[in-house]
């Protein structure tokens, strides 16, 4: 079953607010092996000119993955999770994510395309403060393997 192209431009409701915590930033930095004091020690972050600990650059995915999940399970979209492969990921920052930020994430479907037998789904997630200040934007390209609509009237036996 192919993805529903009418959903391009669909915007999902914002997620519940996520409180970016110092301990989560420390845990995440530790998990990726980043010992930079700016991620661990508030004094070091402030000496570098920041208000608090700085999250490593891929940290927003922790939040945006939850937002993207809304698109992934949306029955209107028609995505089969068993065929999903994460194709690409991109982050664009207005400013860093700091401990103490409270962020809401709004995700949307940017594009639905075809590449050979696969479909390509691009979603965007905007991370904003409660005041509506855009902090970061992330784009995910998800590959749906083998679901591109077929031009043939007859499917070979065994095709999903």
């Amino acid at each position, binding site marked *: 079953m192919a993805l529903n192209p009418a959903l391009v431009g669909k915007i999902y409701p914002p997620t519940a607010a996520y409180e970016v915590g110092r301990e*989560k930033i420390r*845990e*995440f930095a*530790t*998990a*990726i*092996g*980043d010992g*930079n004091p*700016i*991620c661990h020690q508030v004094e070091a972050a402030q000496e*570098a000119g*920041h208000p608090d600990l*700085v*999250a*490593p*650059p*891929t940290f927003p*995915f*922790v939040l945006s*993955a*939850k937002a993207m999940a809304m698109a992934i399970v949306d029955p209107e979209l028609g995505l089969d999770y068993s065929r999903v*492969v*994460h*194709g*690409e*990921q*991109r*982050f*664009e*920052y207005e400013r*860093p994510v700091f401990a103490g930020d409270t962020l809401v994430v709004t995700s949307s479907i940017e594009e639905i395309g075809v590449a050979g037998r696969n479909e390509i789904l691009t979603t965007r997630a905007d991370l904003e403060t409660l005041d509506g200040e855009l902090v970061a934007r992330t*784009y995910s*390209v998800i590959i749906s393997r083998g679901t591109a609509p077929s031009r043939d009237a007859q499917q070979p036996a065994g095709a999903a």
Partner: protein
Amino acid sequence: MAPRFEDVQVGDELPAQTFVLQRMNLVMYCGASGDFNVIHWNERIAKLVGLPDVIAHGMLTMAEAGRVLTDWAGDPAAVVEYGVRFTRPVVVPDDDQGARLEVSGVVTGKRADDCVEVELTATSAGVEVLGKARAVVRLGAPPVS
């Protein structure tokens, strides 16, 4: 010492790094990121769905490779843009060696606002695991002494 924008030239190489990924690292990343997908810790199911073994999260590979950027710039806040394509999974066997992720980077351009463009190369077992790995990094002004 963090590089100064004035001193950086197109073609400069960032210090390359090798990151070792063992099963424990994947488990830690599952907890830290909230992504508990079984293919990142359960060998039985990973093989059942056709993978050669447990594989690292693409996002973990992206995060590790990103350390070449942040270690060079000296500050995670320096990364203004970062994007990758996931070309091949990093297979992590259940042994004491794990997988080795080799990452290098080169400055490909200089922009206004003290930002440089960087292209990263990331391989594991001789295979490119990240493609089109590009970043924009803002380098700080020299400290006023």
